[in-house]
């Protein structure tokens, strides 16, 4: 791997940048691997990287049906935060948020982690109570979160409208200063490059079409569009397609796949200093380093695999943003797109072993998986390597739905998050 540094940039500049090599090999599948990761998004690439970097596995394949980072990793609004209500969630998401801090150094790849603060707005007495409850719960768990009055929110985010004459006036907000954004593509590319350097075969355009099990039920390998590949350890990190892939092994999941949309505006000069979220009126907005406003819309009502959604879903969030940020009313939107998110009944993920020996699953991240990329990958690699969950992801089993031990962030937040 060519390491990136000021010196390497300078050296390449003198060679007209002709000496850069591809950041990962174009691998072709070998007949067998020690471990296979299905799904080349951030969570999957990270899993392959940590299996190699921390657990000493070298003979690993990562299978991606199209190109890496082309699914939800490249389609989300890049918001990072860990201010979840329940202890289990706070531990999981904060494990991840802490890993973002030095991820660029660890991967030698600039993931542009920017802890610019995530401000969640309250618009009703109920919102105020819910957000304050979150703040207290977070502080008990060592997660920073603080209450801002409307004036303090305005001082932190100057374009915010705190006038009382709008339909849902701002009554305050919860600010997590460590929250922020990161560059989503860089996360995929950084993990891919680092995993490749440790010998992981990253195989793009390789769709898993079947999962083969032996007479005892254990995993033998996977059928793919490039032929059969043997492995006794298979980890499925397929996001919206988790139900489809796991169904090939006869495992049913408590998931439904919905389209989730996002959009960006034309690029403008820096105007949004932080991330602003409003769960009640559904607005998610931040500004990318390119200058585009990055706006998250909601999920469509129905399950789908189309990677597109309806315009009225975007209009709903834009109406909220125009109220909260009157200065944005004349801005033009450049692009919108959809991704397919796998939503679990309690809106918490599943990072677990399955009843099938050798088969592991990391899914159910729903509308909020990007923030968890490093932590999720790290814990899932641990689970695959040790054949048992790490204490942090131990509560995030499939069996919790049978045992009634739900981690009900859906009820806690009352919205998709």
């Amino acid at each position, binding site marked *: 791997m060519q390491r990136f540094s000021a010196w390497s940039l300078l050296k390449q500049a003198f060679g007209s940048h002709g000496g850069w090599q591809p950041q990962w090999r174009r691998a072709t599948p070998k007949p067998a691997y020690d471990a296979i990761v299905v799904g080349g998004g951030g969570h999957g690439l990270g899993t392959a990287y940590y299996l190699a970097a921390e657990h000493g596995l070298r003979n690993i394949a990562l299978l991606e049906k199209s190109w890496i980072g082309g699914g939800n990793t490249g389609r989300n609004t890049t918001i990072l935060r860990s201010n979840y209500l329940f202890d289990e969630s706070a531990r999981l998401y904060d494990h991840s948020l802490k890993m973002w801090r030095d991820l660029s150094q660890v991967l030698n790849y600039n993931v542009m982690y920017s802890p610019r603060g995530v401000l969640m707005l309250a618009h009703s007495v109920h919102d105020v109570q819910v957000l304050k409850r979150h703040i207290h719960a977070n502080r008990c768990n060592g997660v920073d979160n603080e209450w801002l009055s409307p004036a303090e929110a305005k001082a932190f985010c100057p374009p915010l409208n705190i006038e009382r004459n709008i339909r849902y006036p701002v009554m305050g907000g919860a600010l997590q200063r460590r929250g922020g954004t990161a560059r989503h593509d860089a996360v995929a590319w950084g993990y891919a490059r680092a995993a490749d350097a440790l010998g992981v075969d990253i195989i793009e355009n390789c769709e898993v079409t079947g999962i083969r099990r032996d007479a005892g039920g254990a995993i033998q390998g996977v059928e793919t569009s490039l032929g059969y590949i043997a492995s006794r350890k298979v980890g499925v990190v397929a996001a919206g*397609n988790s*139900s*489809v892939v796991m169904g090939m092994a006869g495992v*049913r*999941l*408590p*998931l*439904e*796949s919905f389209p989730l949309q996002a959009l960006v505006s034309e690029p403008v000069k820096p105007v949004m200093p932080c991330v602003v979220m409003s769960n009640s009126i559904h607005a998610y907005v931040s500004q990318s380093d390119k200058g585009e406003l990055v706006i998250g819309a909601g999920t469509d*009502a*129905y*399950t*789908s*695999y*189309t990677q597109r959604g*309806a*315009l*009225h879903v975007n209009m709903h969030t834009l109406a909220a943003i125009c109220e909260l940020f009157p200065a944005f009313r004349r801005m033009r939107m450049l692009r919108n797109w959809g991704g397919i998110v796998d939503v679990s*009944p309690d809106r918490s993920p599943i990072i677990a072993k399955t009843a099938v020996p050798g088969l592991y699953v990391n899914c159910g991240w729903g509308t909020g998986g990007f923030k968890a990329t490093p932590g999720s990958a790290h814990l899932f690699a641990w689970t695959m390597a040790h054949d048992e969950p790490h204490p942090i992801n131990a509560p995030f089993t499939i069996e919790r*739905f*049978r*045992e009634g031990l739900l981690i009900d962030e859906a009820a806690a937040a009352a919205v998709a998050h």
Partner: protein
Amino acid sequence: MLLIHCPYCGDRPELEFSYGGQAHIARPSKPESVTADQWVEFLYLRSNPRGVHAERWRHVRGCARYFNALRDTRTDRFIATYKAGEAPPQQSGSTP
């Protein structure tokens, strides 16, 4: 936005409807004799197919009645809608 054929009212825009999830899931008739695994099946497990999905819709801003639909989740194209209580219509071999 989808154009949805209500079996009672005809073609209407998606905004008039609410989605009711997977169809043909019957609540256990004797809850006291249902095992934990059967509750998981009823409450949480969903088919979530990449293909034809039988699902419930409600024409909430119209006749307010529930009905069922077959829709292909790869294209969002409706194959058929039918009244609640009816069996899903037979599909021809070709996919839409």
